[in-house]
Each structure stands twice: as C-alpha cells, then as structure tokens.
C-alpha cells in the first residue's frame, strides 16, 4: 500500500497536507475553548481567541505628566516619566506621533520638536519632554501611539471556577459529585459482569445461546425507555433521587456492554489452560478468580474506560435519578448546562468550567487509549 504513495512524491505531499488540515480542523474547536479559558472577560469579548496567540496592535492616546511636575535643569524645563505609568501594561510602542492624524510620524527613540519643546519617547514608554521656557497649562501633552501588547493570559478564571466557592460558578462541588457518581458506577458493573461473562463463555448449561442473544438485544435498548419506570420504582421502594439510585441505574445500563465485551474476550482465551485446571481439581470459582480474571485484564480495562467516560460525561441519568430540587448533588455536566442558561454570554466562566469537566476524560483518554481502541474493536467489529 505504502509503495503507491512512495512512488509519487506529489501524492505523498498531498496526503501529508490533507492530514495536517484534517487534524487542525478537528483540534481547532477544543483549542478555542482551552485558549479562552485563560483570557479575561474583556479580552474574550473584544477579540477572537485566535488573535490571543499573537501580539495585538492597539492605537492609544496617552499623556505626559502635568506641567506642575516639571523640574529645571540648567536653562531647560524637563518632565520625565513613563507614558504607561497609569496603564501598568507591558506593551511596547511601535510608532508614535504628536498628532492624532499621524500615528507613525516617529519611531521609538526619535525626538519630536514643536514650539521649542522637544519630546523623546522610548519603546517601553519612557519619555523626556524638555522646553526652553517654563511649560504652562494644567494637563500634560498628548502623545498618540501604536502600541503592541504581547499575548496575555490569566489563571483568574480557574481561581473563580475552582476555588472561589461562588455558588453559581463553582465547579468544585460538582467535580466531587461527579467523581462520587463515577467510581462506584464503574467498578460494580465490572464485578457483576465478569462472573456472568465467565458463565456465558465457559460453563455449559441449557439456554446459554438464548441468554447471549438476550444480552446482545439489550445492548441497543435506548435508556430513555428506562427513565420513567425506574424513577417510579426508585420512588416506590424509597431510594428516591440520590447516589444509590444513580449507581444502580448506571450499573444496569452498563451491564450489557460489559457482559458482551468480557464474554467475547473470555471465549478467546486458550481452552487448554482452563481444562488443565479442571483436571487438576480446580473449582469454577478458583478457575475464574485465579486464571480468567488476571488474563482478562485488557478487556476489563477497556470496559472500565468506556464506563468511566460514559458516566463522567452523562447528563440524562444524572438529571433523572440524581439531581433533586435542592441541587446539592449536581454534577458537572448539569452545572455547565445551567451556566449556559444563567451566564450564556460569560465565555470566560463557561469555557473554564467546560474545560475543567473535560480535562479528566481527556487525561484518561490519552493515558489509556490503547485499551479504548481495543474495546471499540472488540465491541463493534464482527
């Protein structure tokens, strides 16, 4: 396959360029969110995030200090200082002028002469204004500059979202709630499914084929169907809305995939090992815990990642089974949807909150991608 591309350099280049384009197109949205989370509200609303990566040019009107600060040096009256004094910025001056019509009249370091006054402005905003006669008036001279501001990023949004404890913006509580939902909802189905998968893979009993078909069928049942009946059930038996019901629901909804993935994997394990162990007198329970489980680690890991991503990113189950009127048990996805409502225009908070919620899945994704891909292949390719 590669040799076709190799024989035609132009085609190879076309492939490289198209892949670069494709990757950039796919990354662009996420990077936008990431960059925006480090910008202030003003910056976000005044320019597109893609401009934040480069220095921005800005036309500014600045003033020298007032004549009352002048000092006499020999026969000159002098005012010295920095044009950016009040702005406190790290901008640099590209060009400047003494008239609003010509901003590029002088370069930094040049000296302008006008009515016997001489003005020198440096790139960092330092200036020296001298005059042969005493300067008058109450306000300083105006200087028109084109200033270049370097990219400027801030962690203030993360402080606001993670540490402030602000009741609408804070994600820290939602973060821990999400964690509380996710971990039991990932581990418990694995344990239950592993035993069932072993029985379906290696134990012989009537109705096994039917049960496997049953699991495959349940694999695609939309969980929308389960919402009302289960909510009714939970309210009926007194669990109500809360973590317990959510863990149970996630367990139930995750089981078909777990059983299906694990069974497919276990069936592929070498028959010899298991039969030798049987001959040596091992019970099914021992075979399962001592042989099958350790060998099935890749499949267990695959499912664990699926279930983790799914429960972490879930909104529907949490909304139906977990979040009650008090809102104490809100999860991050729900918190973000609420922020979209209350703070639809505040991109700095939204972007940061969204990034906090997707950081963990991204971490898991990049760390354990191998298992995720394996699981996908086992789960869909037949």
């Amino acid at each position, binding site marked *: 396959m590669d040799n076709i591309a190799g024989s035609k350099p132009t085609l190879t280049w076309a492939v490289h360029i198209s892949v670069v384009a494709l990757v950039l197109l*796919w990354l662009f949205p996420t990077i936008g969110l990431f960059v925006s989370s480090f910008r202030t509200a003003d910056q976000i609303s*005044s320019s597109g995030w893609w401009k934040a990566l480069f220095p921005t040019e800005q036309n500014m009107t600045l003033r020298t200090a007032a004549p009352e600060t002048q000092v006499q040096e020999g026969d000159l009256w002098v005012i010295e200082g920095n044009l950016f004094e009040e702005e406190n910025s790290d901008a640099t001056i590209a060009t400047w002028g003494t008239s609003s019509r010509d901003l590029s009249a002088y370069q930094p370091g040049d000296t302008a002469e006008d009515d016997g006054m001489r003005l020198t402005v440096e790139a960092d905003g330092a200036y020296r204004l001298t005059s042969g006669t005493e300067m008058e008036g109450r306000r300083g001279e105006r200087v028109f500059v084109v200033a270049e501001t370097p990219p400027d990023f801030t962690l203030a949004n993360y402080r606001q979202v993670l540490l402030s404890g602000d009741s609408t913006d804070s994600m820290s509580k939602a973060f821990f709630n999400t964690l509380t939902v996710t971990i039991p909802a990932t581990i418990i189905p694995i344990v239950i499914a592993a035993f069932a998968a072993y029985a379906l893979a290696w134990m012989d009993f009537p109705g096994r084929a039917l049960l496997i078909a049953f699991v495959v069928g349940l694999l695609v049942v*939309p969980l929308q169907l389960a919402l*009302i009946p289960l909510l009714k059930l939970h309210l009926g038996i007194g669990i109500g809305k809360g973590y*317990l019901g959510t863990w149970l629901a996630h367990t139930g909804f995750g089981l078909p995939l777990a059983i299906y993935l694990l069974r497919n994997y276990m069936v592929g394990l070498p028959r010899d090992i298991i039969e030798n162990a049987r001959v040596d007198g091992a019970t099914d329970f021992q075979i399962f815990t001592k042989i099958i489980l350790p060998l099935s680690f890749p499949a267990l890991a695959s499912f664990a990642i699926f279930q983790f991503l799914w429960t972490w990113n879930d909104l529907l189950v949490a909304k139906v089974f977990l979040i009650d009127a008090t809102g104490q048990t809100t999860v991050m996805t729900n918190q973000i949807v609420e922020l979209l409502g209350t703070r639809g225009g505040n991109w700095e908070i939204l972007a940061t909150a969204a990034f906090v919620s997707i950081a963990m899945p991204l971490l898991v994704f990049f760390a354990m991608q191998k298992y995720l891909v394996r699981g996908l292949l086992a789960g869909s390719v037949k």
Partner: protein
Amino acid sequence: MHPALAGLVTIVIGVGGCLAYFWLSNQFLDKVLFPAKGPQAGRNINRANQIRPWLFLFPALFALGLYLAYPVVETIRLSLTERVTQADGTTVYEFVWFANYVQMSADPKFWEAMFNNMLWLIVVPALSTAFGLLAAQLTDRIWWGNVAKSLIFMPMAISFVGAAVIWKLIYDARPPDTNQIGVVNAIYVSLTGNDPVQLLTVPFWNNFFLMIVLIWIQTGFAMVILSAALRGIPEETVEAAIVDGANPFQIFFKIKVPQIAGTIVVVWTTITLVVLKIFDIVFAMTNGQWGTQVLANYMFNQLFVARDWGVGSASAMVIMLLVTPILVWNVRNARREMR
C-alpha cells in the same frame, strides 16, 4: 454521611458484597446442598454443576431484567395509560388504548422532532463514516499517522455537553460592527460584509449546525474501526490491482471499500444508534427551540416539563420502534456467529 464517604462505602459493600455472594453461594452449593462425598457424590457433583452457572449469572440477570427488560414492558403499559388523580388524592393509571399516541400525533412538535431525527439519521452516520474512512485511509499511509489518529479521535472523550459549549463559542454572534468572537461569523462577516448571523436560530439550517457537533465527535470512532479493517485487507488484492495499472482512487473505491463493506455497515449502524438517542447536544445548545426538536429531547420535555407520562412513554416507544430493526439484525448476527 458525606457523599464521597458514601461512595467509598458503596464500592466496598458493592464489590465486597458481590464477591461474598459468589464465594458463599458456591460454598453453600458444594458443601451443604450437594456435598461431593458420601454415597451420592457423583450425582451431587453433576447437580451442583447444573446450578452453578445460574449462581454466576443471577446478579447480572437480575439487574438486566430490572433495569432494562422490565422498563420496556412497563413503558409499553404506561404509553397505553393515562395518569388520573382521583378525588381522594390518589393516582391511578387508567387504560386508554392508543389515546396517547393519537394525542402525540396531533402535536406539530412531535412531527418536527420526527422530521429532524430523520435528517439526523441520514446526515450524521453518512458524514461521520465518510470522514472516518477518509481519515483512516490517509493516516494509514504516513509515519505520524498514529498521532494524527489520536488527535482526531480525541473528541470521543469529550462529553456532549462540553462539545456543546465548544461549538457554541464557534457559532457565537456579536452585534454588527463589533469584533466577532465566533469563528464562523468572523469569517462570514469579513468575506461578505453582511451582518453576523445567530446561526443556531436560522430555521432548518440550525439542525445541520447541531449535527456538525456529533459528526465531529463520531468521526474518530469511525476512523479507528475502519482503520483496523483497512489494515486487515489482504495485501495481494491491492498488489494485483497495482500490477493491473489501477490508480490510487480506483484501488481505494474498487478494491478496498468493497472488502470492508461489512465493517462500514457496523460503523454506520452503531452511529445510527447514537443518533436515535441524541439528547444532550440539542438540550444544551437549543433545547429544541427554533425548529431543532429531536425525539429524545421531545420525550424529556413531555416527561419532566409537561409531566405527561403517557405521551412521554409513547414517544419513548417510538424511539424503541426505530431501534428495533437494528436490534433484530444484531441478535441474528450474534446467533449466526455462535453456530
């Protein structure tokens, strides 16, 4: 109790309980019920082995039955009943035949949702699979293909809600004559000079803007599966085509694609299932306003906003009906494989 602590206790009880159940029930079976000793040892071992699979299966079957099978039946029942509050304050479920379905089919919002869902069903699986195939084919031929794949695959890890925020920023529109911070409008305004457009409120087309979000997420999935399938193609078929003078496009469309047709169908149906249940993206971005309603969101509104369990269940049954062909097909495939 603090929820985190409760979570920890749940893990311990859940996992410990499961293990204890499996161990104790096995012990009980082997030692008490059918001990493998005495005059009937042989018969007892056989009996124990007949029962054991069901011990292993019981928790899973119980959970599956209660959390997936029972709701299907119960939803059918609910969709045929009406919740009535009686004079003494108790609620009863009155059997009303198909009144809920009739009521639903009179609702224009329902037909809007049906129409949009059909649009989604056509567009999203097709484009995701096409982009996935393209990405798989291209990345397979270059040395940094795995890095590229990993980056295109990344949106899979992002929640639908997170993706909704990401894309809302892209579709954002500011008042005319101010700097546009949404990239689509920034390009549109600088190219045409027109006023910026609130993209998510443009009827009909806004559906496609929502679909792009799901395509962006699902392309990585299609790519990973199809890339594995492409690698499984026997080298000889491609080499024979080269010898016969086929150009790269012919090789791709006439040699490779037919050989992975089965995988393409699997990818297509898997994405179709996701599309049928799509809820979060619409809920977070438009909540079905401006003509973007879809079935799952319609159902959510009926259940939790209008609080009409009858119509809500009826619309859930519509989703179930749409899924059923895939369900049957999957089950038949699985059974054929086992033979």
